[in-house]
């Protein structure tokens, strides 16, 4: 795997603190699987560790990331102009495993949509999408998937279901009881915990894409671990054994 030189071709503000970043890579990253991520060098000298980002889209050496400003690194990134040069390491991590089934359910909250975007593109109309965010404005994050008729919830009730997306999902889970379902989820820990509770009885097959602070992204430092039910070795690396885990194997 090479450290690939990249040029920012677009760094666009979407809404509130969400952005999309388009990068032209100097060479191919190879095959990208849904759920994988990259480690991106933040241009300039202010921060030195790379930052992990889910691959939002990738084709013809053009890599798109969707990100939310959450700290110093992403804040600097949000101010990077077009033509700025940087480095990209990837694709990294495992991937969602898509098993043949009757019903694919994709659940995302907030910036979690970035983690499941390539998966949704792959599943297309076969996926039932549930998306939760704060308000109507943030729904512009899923503008490109409206034709897939996503079910949406907003915390302030300004559009779709008022409340959290797991409450919205509850009805659907009830109405599809008995069907062979497979759930994919990416979002805040609280949301994933609520999902765990919702489907606890049936233990519906579910894969969760998790997020952790990372230093290397390559499995070298053991910094980005997530606790699992494995008693012998509870802490697994989000960058190496993940970022996709079986929901029933992780302890949130």
């Amino acid at each position, binding site marked *: 795997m090479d450290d690939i030189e990249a040029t920012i071709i677009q760094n666009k503000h979407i809404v509130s603190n969400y952005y999309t970043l388009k990068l032209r890579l100097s060479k191919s990253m190879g095959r990208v699987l849904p759920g994988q991520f990259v480690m991106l060098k933040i241009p300039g000298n202010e921060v*030195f560790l790379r930052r992990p980002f889910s691959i939002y889209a990738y084709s013809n050496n053009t890599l798109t990331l969707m990100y939310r400003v959450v700290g110093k690194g992403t804040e600097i990134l949000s101010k990077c102009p077009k033509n700025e040069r940087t480095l990209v390491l990837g694709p990294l991590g495992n991937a969602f495993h898509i098993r043949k089934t009757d019903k694919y359910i994709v659940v995302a909250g907030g910036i979690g949509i970035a983690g499941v975007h390539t998966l949704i593109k792959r599943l297309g109309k076969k996926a039932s999408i549930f998306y939760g965010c704060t308000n109507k404005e943030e729904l512009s994050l899923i503008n490109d998937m409206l034709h897939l008729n996503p079910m949406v919830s907003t915390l302030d009730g300004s559009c779709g279901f008022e409340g959290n997306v797991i409450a919205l999902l509850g009805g659907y889970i009830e109405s599809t009881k008995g069907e062979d379902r497979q759930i994919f989820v990416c979002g805040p820990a609280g949301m994933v915990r609520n999902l765990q509770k919702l489907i606890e009885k049936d233990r519906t097959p579910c894969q969760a894409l998790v997020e952790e*602070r990372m*230093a290397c992204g*390559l499995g070298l*430092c053991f*910094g*980005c671990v997530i606790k699992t039910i494995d008693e*012998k070795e509870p802490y697994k690396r989000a960058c190496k054994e993940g970022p996709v885990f079986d929901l029933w194997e992780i302890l949130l």
Partner: protein
Amino acid sequence: MGNLTVEFFEKTMRNPVMNASGTLGYGKEIESLWGIETLGAYVTKGLSAEPHHGNPTPRVWEERNGMINSIGLQNIGVDRFFDEYFPYFKKRKTPVIVNFFGFTEEEYLACAAKIKPDPFIVALEMNLSCPNIKKGGISFGKEPGAVFEIVKHVKGVTKIPLVAKLTPEVRNIVEIAQAAHEGGADGLTLINTMPAAVVDVKSRNIPIRGGLSGPILKPIALRAVYECSKAVPIPIIGAGGIMNTEDAISFFMAGARAIQIGTATFVDPYAIPKIIRGIGEYLDAHGCSGIGDIVGIARD
């Protein structure tokens, strides 16, 4: 390119560059980027007689010019390492330095005793920054007397050369280096990370306490290498904030016979091969026949 080969404890290494313990996983993880045989020696992740789970997250944090880690010495245990990983290094003809630790003297001895001499084991590297849980949690590496004792006792259970890795958080690191030498240490690694903490002003808490590494550590490490290499005759492995070739060269000039690279690998996973190449180019450009030509030249 000139000859980078060095002799360490009667074993030949391709070059004087190693990874710092815990910054290159169990070794295989770097395989998709560069070959492990690139290294002079692979330093294992810290191993203990029994496996350790490590700490909850956050385990890593970036600070200005430094990084704080609190991995908590997660490891699969020395037995599993030798069963599952060690054959890989032998197959790749890569010398290994086995970093190990304990929370009691018995644990250090138990771990060291489990490691059998092997043509591909250059040395054991003893992490002295661990808290001694039987002595109220004070690190083994803080008092010259305690360092002398534990080094001597570990030497009693192994025939493999022993390198003591010292913590910089001491009153006088030269005194500690001398104690390790008198206890029988065959070499020193200088320095381990520096204990540090972060305050998150927004949430008004302390999200992480752990070991500080990275560029911020370099001058502290250089001073330790300089002072200790004057005071003890055993070889010194320099570590602490080496980010590029020039940093590496400065450690040799201060008196280090080999170096370790840690945090730089997280910034650029190709840092190690780049620095090895850079050292070779430096030696060529300055008409040196080997690294020995520059070891200690800024000091003497």
